[in-house]
C-alpha cells in the first residue's frame, strides 16, 4: 500500500520560499498569480496491507518525523 502525504505550512506561517517563487514568477512575466505556498509531497511504500493499520502507522510517522507540527499540517491519502 502507498501513502501519499502532503505537508503544508499552517495558515499564517510565513513561507519564504513561496514568497520568493511568487516574485520570480512575476519577473518571468506571469502576472496572474496571487499567492504561492510551497509544501512537501512524500510518497511512502508500505508493506502493511490493512488500511486502518497503514493509516495509523503513517499518522505516527508524520507526527514523529515527517511533519513539524509546530508549523506544519499534514494530510495522508492511502493509495492501493
Amino acid at each position: 500500500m502507498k501513502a501519499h502525504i502532503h505537508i503544508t505550512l499552517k495558515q499564517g506561517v510565513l513561507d519564504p520560499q513561496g514568497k520568493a517563487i511568487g516574485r520570480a514568477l512575476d519577473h518571468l512575466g506571469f502576472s496572474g498569480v496571487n499567492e504561492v505556498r510551497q509544501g512537501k509531497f512524500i510518497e511512502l511504500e508500505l508493506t502493511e496491507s490493512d488500511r486502518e493499520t497503514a493509516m495509523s502507522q503513517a499518522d505516527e510517522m508524520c507526527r514523529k518525523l515527517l511533519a513539524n507540527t509546530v508549523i506544519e499540517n499534514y494530510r495522508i491519502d492511502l493509495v492501493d
Partner: protein
Amino acid sequence: MKAGVIVFPGSNSDRDVAVAIERVCGRRPQMIWHGDHDLPDLDLVILPGGFAYGDYLRAGAMAARSPIVDAVKKHAARGGLTLGICNGFQMLTEMGLLPGALLRNRDLHFICRDVDLRVENTNSAFTRDFAANPQVRINMSHHDGNYVASDSDIAALEAENRVVFRYVDRDGTPQYDTAPNGSTRGIAGILNRGGNVLGLMPHPERLFENALGGSGGRPMFTSLMNHFAHA
C-alpha cells in the same frame, strides 16, 4: 584578463572571488548586476557562490532565469570562458549549459570543510597550472553538491575527460562512492564539450593564499591569467 562577476540577490562569495582574482591576477573583476541585460566586453564570466534567491525552490533555479542569463548564454555560445563556483555551478546546470543537476548532500547536512581533489584534466584554460601538482586541497561549503546525471551523460563526461575535479582520499584514491556529499563518481567539477564552461562545487577562492590555510585553489586563477596572457 577582463573578468566579470555576476551579482545575484543572495550571492555571498561574489566579493571573495573578485578579491582572489585581483590578488592573484592583478586586476579587479567588474561586478555585474543580475538585472542587467548586457555584458560588457569580458574574457571570463563568473557565476559566484552563495544562496541566490535563498536557494529557494531549487539551488540556482531562480537565478538561472535572471535577465542577465541570455547574455551569459551568448557569451558561452561564442566560446567565452564561463566559470560557475558552487551556487554558480548549480546555476549552470539549471541554465542547461552543463548537464545533470546538483541535489541535496547525501546526509542532508550542509558541509564546510577542506577536501582533497584530483584535477583530472589539466588541459583546460581553467586548469593548466594544476598539471605540476594535480592533487589539491580546497574548501567545500555547500548544501546541494550531490551531482547526478543520466548514465549516458556520466559516461560521456568520463569518456571525454570532462570530469575535471574529483573528490579523492588523502592518498589520492578516488571517492567514486564515498564523496562527502554523495556525488556520483566523486564528481566535484565538470566541463562542457566546448571546454569553455566549467562548474565546480568547491571554492578555489577560499584557499588561494597560505594565510587562509592553503593555496590549493590558486592555480585556477593563474591558469586563467596565463591563458589570456598567452592568447
